[in-house]
């Protein structure tokens, strides 16, 4: 093949995969908006669950304030309560992305197989990674609506105060966390094809236990305060990028001295570095898992078999 032909071929493949990404992101970005009821279900209703956790900290704070008379102690309780509520709100935004990764990334290929679309994807000439990338981009966009509404509710309804001193690092941590999370979702997508029906239950099982181990509603460093098993759970939870990402974002949004600086797992720099490694590892593993599972599913004739 000549140099010009090779360049044209590469350009054609890039264009094809970009079109595939846009095509797969389209139903999530545009198609879903044709059914505006999703905003109520995906953006408004989930806020209520987060509000419940906010009210727990408010109730605990009010009861602690009732017994406090020293002005310094009162100020400390108020500051801690605000920081905990802010932690819940930040955790609530990450819950949205984690649920999207579980139900709209990890489970999606299995779901596509169930409804008969998977064989169409497999026959199409684009890379399957482009397909998953499009899903991820569309999912991130859809989920951002919920995440932004959660953040806005935190500030406007619950009066949360953030002290952001380094917005660029905050944005970097946020996007690296998302890339690592969706990379993990892409990896799970092919594994779920292998696990079949158990995938559905696995997704359900990765809700509350992960909310707990990754500290979605409390600073993850709190786990290290639990003797014997707490630190082990915190380290296990850190393999889910949301846990480390949240810890770093909380440090950047509340200041490293929040909670007396005693609830953080690692420094922001260390967490960002780990997240970068996780992002690369998950994307590479996703690429290999997808290729392997595709071959395996074709060999065993399970690519189109439903309800297994």
């Amino acid at each position, binding site marked *: 093949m000549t140099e010009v032909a090779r360049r044209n071929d590469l350009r054609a493949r890039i264009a094809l995969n970009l079109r595939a990404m846009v095509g797969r992101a389209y139903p*999530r970005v545009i198609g*879903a908006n044709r*059914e505006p*009821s*999703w905003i*109520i*279900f*995906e953006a*408004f*209703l*989930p*806020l*209520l*669950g*987060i*509000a*419940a*956790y906010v*009210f*727990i*900290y*408010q*109730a*605990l*704070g*009010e*009861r*602690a304030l009732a017994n406090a008379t020293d002005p310094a102690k009162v100020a*400390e*309780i108020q500051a*801690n309560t605000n920081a*905990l509520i802010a932690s819940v709100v930040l955790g609530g935004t990450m819950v949205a992305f984690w*649920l999207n990764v579980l*139900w709209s990334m990890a489970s999606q290929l299995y*779901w596509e197989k*169930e*409804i008969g*679309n998977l064989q169409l994807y497999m026959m199409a000439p684009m890379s399957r990674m482009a397909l998953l990338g499009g899903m991820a981009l569309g999912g991130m966009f859809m989920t951002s609506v919920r995440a932004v509404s959660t953040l806005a509710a935190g500030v406007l309804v619950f009066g949360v105060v953030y002290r952001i001193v380094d917005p660029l690092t905050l944005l970097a941590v946020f996007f690296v966390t998302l890339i690592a999370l969706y990379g993990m979702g892409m990896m799970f997508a092919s594994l779920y094809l292998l696990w079949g*029906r*158990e995938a*559905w*239950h696995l997704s*359900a*099982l990765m*809700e*509350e*236990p992960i*909310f*707990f181990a990754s*500290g*979605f*509603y*409390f600073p993850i460093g*709190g786990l290290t*305060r*639990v003797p014997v098993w707490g630190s082990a759970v915190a380290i296990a939870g850190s393999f889910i990028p949301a846990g480390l990402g949240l810890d770093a974002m909380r440090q950047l949004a509340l200041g490293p001295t929040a*909670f007396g600086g*005693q*609830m953080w797992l690692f420094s922001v720099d260390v967490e960002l570095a780990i997240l970068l490694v996780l992002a690369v590892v998950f994307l590479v593993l996703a690429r290999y898992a997808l290729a392997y599972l595709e071959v395996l599913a074709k060999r065993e004739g399970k690519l189109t078999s439903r*309800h297994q």
Partner: protein
Amino acid sequence: MSTYWRTFKVAAWLGWEMDSNWTEPWLFVLYSILKPVAGAFILVLMYVVFATIGNTEDPSMFAYMYVGNAFFIFVASTLFGTFQVIQSDREWYQTIRYVYISPISYYVYILGRAASKVAVATFAVVVTLAFGIAFLGVEMGLSLADVPVLVAAFVLGIAVLLAIGICLGGISFLTAKHVHGLAEGIPGLFYVFCGVLFPLSALPEWGRSVGQAIPLTYWFDLTRRILVPGTSIDRTLNAYDDLTILLLLFASSLVFFALSVIIFRIGEYVARKAGKIDMTTSY
């Protein structure tokens, strides 16, 4: 009546098979325990973090939260078990047309399908409560004389939940694939307004009024009165005695049953008219 009973039995068996036959029994038991216990642990850690940074302990509040959260497992499971039936049969298994045209009551079929979720939830609640008493020092007590009231409150609470679930099922005849949003959002509504995790007094005035209009608030309050007697938490329902609350729950269950029949029939009628009974909305 025998047709209704047969429908209920077969649907309950079907629901149980669908819930449990995907794996080995030990894994299913683990799965049934792990989710609710992890949910309880979130609260435990929230309390630990608050107590650690503020150097303040509040065992009454912890017991209040823990028991409320344990019984909330019924809310999430029963509601989801009820309203997901239509969408899972329609969108996932695509069997709704066959079940729907069979000579049974679809309403009773849904109740049957939800029964297995109630059974699994009961197991999870017992495990969560036992775990709290054994390992977390949650202060609970139950006198023998209170058992009939607890059982009556439980039956009425589940009846209200089933009726609310059927109401949502009626609506889901007409909506797209929103089961997860509903599963997360509707229980969230009760999580906030029914005094599950914090006393109603933590809510603004309008929120308290909303909470007092929902029968589940009374169920949670009565259950906690029996299981956590002598708590120092302000429950805001002190004006009602146990019997009054039971009567309120009984009246609510009748009202919600009537509502569920009406909403279900309207949803069904409109879905049939619009040709939406067996629609699929995958995006």
